[in-house]
């Protein structure tokens, strides 16, 4: 999961072209809540299931883990290291893959994309690095008999797909509404184990991540000029006619 700047706030870039994390509050990426929800539903139907949350990010990324733990689940892993700042999807997926391999897994559940970078490629990169199936972009899913099956809306078609476990799965915002943490859940989350790891623990060199390991660079980041305020009229019974005149003037009619 990812701790991201609040998507409803006014987000900005710093001078070096990375996301400014100081100016707005951050929270658990809304799209990752759907993955948490699916993990909880799978665990509810499987007594042996154990859920561990994983994030990479600065100190306050722990808040995202606590939020998930308050929804349910067992434990969490936080990878934090100053050298990670400015990592791209390749650096991030490397760190996630090493941390996942370290603790072992049957199923890695992810959101479809983060609400800040919105690339949506980390699940595929994770599967490639871990050498397991990528059963991604699912709108519904069923895990049974060592397989995961689900519906994916792809580029030009809707497909039903299936892969065997272990696998990386990503779910969309249509997979099912995420639950709210209960007060009891929030209290219980404070006592659940949360492990913190750094790059040394994972055997990763600083040069493999951060700006040094990034494979692309931002040249410029400029704010779009705000749209100039248009003409807003209350309908006095001729709103449609006035709108038609506007569209005609703009040559759409």
């Amino acid at each position, binding site marked *: 999961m990812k701790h991201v700047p609040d*998507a409803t706030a006014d987000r*900005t870039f710093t001078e070096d072209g990375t996301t400014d994390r100081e100016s707005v509050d951050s929270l658990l990426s809304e799209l990752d809540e759907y993955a948490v929800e699916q993990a909880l539903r799978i665990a509810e139907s499987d007594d042996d299931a154990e859920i561990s949350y994983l994030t990479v990010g600065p100190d306050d990324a722990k808040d995202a883990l606590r939020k998930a733990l308050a929804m349910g689940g067992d434990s969490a892993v936080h990878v934090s290291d100053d050298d990670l700042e400015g990592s791209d999807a390749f650096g991030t997926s490397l760190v996630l893959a090493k941390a996942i391999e370290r603790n072992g897994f049957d199923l890695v559940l992810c959101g479809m994309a983060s609400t800040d970078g919105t690339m949506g490629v980390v699940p595929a990169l994770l599967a490639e690095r871990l050498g397991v199936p990528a059963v991604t972009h699912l709108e519904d899913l069923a895990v049974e008999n060592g397989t995961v099956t689900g519906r994916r809306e792809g580029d030009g078609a809707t497909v039903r797909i299936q892969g065997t476990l272990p696998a990386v799965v990503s779910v969309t915002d249509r997979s099912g509404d995420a639950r709210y943490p209960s007060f009891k859940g929030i209290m219980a989350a404070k006592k659940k184990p949360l492990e913190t790891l750094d790059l040394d623990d994972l055997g990763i060199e600083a040069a493999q991540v951060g700006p040094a390991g990034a*494979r692309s660079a931002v040249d410029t980041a400029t*704010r779009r000029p705000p*749209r100039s305020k248009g003409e*807003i009229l209350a309908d006095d019974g001729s*709103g*449609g006619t006035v*709108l038609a005149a506007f569209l005609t003037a703009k040559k759409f009619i």
Partner: protein
Amino acid sequence: MAEILVLVDHTDGAVRKPTLELLTLARRLGEPSAVFLGQGADFAAAALGRYGARKVYVVDAPEVDEYLVTPAVDALTQIAERTGPAAILLPSGPDGKETAARVALRLGSGLITDAVDVTAGADGPVTEQSAFAATYQVTAHITQGVPVITVKPNAVAPEPAPTDPVIDKQDIAFGPASTAVKVLSRTPRERGDRPELTEADIVVSGGRGVNGAENFAVIERIADLLGAAVGASRAAVDAGWYPHSHQVGQTGTQVSPQLYLAAGISGAIQHRAGMQTSKTIVAVNKDADAPIFELADHGVVGDLFEVLPQLADEIERRRS
């Protein structure tokens, strides 16, 4: 001139418009070569040639249709290793982006997704993207390996540049990962009489205010009069009033048409992220405080069931 690989998006050989846009962009960077996976290459080659593909690499193997994404990764990676391209361009859908990421990882290359423009720079392609719900415009370049770039639909108008492409059949060694995710069934997206959402010059969208599936006829009437695609907000889609494939927004389709008409849509940030790069925005909503009016070039505060039928009648009157 350097070769630029373009992954073709098609249904049984019918090439989709975003691929023609990619070929047009590729010509700025070098000589475009299309990479065609699956059946129907002979049919597709003519269309690809019209838009400047000098070569069409064809991989007609059953794996491509029977398994998800990874056969395309094997094919594109191996063709890239054989041809040494100066860049690889793919369409920005879920399939295109995942293919691009895995190809880039295997080639030791950098990746940029969701470009809205690509130009030739001194050190390779320079891309333009929108960020943070389209409030920022970012330019970027790739610093490592063969640049792999996914491009959003409507980045450029397709420009014909007729060639007589060479068809080059490629054998691919599919690795074990290629058969990891089986496609159990495939339902191609239905193409109705209206233009596709991503490709349309005009989009007419309905939201919560439409208040029922049957009421979308009001939206559709305007769309048909304007030759537009129909869009829907997430609220309307979640309510089951219109199919998800028409959802406009951050997690649906992001559109950038000449005209966007939003009716009964308040304009939550996720919706604005999907449409605020539209050239002209028109909004009809009962609530004068709806955030959509902050973006609108022209807004009517009123009941869409009164405003839209009057608009439709007026369009018909002006045309007759």
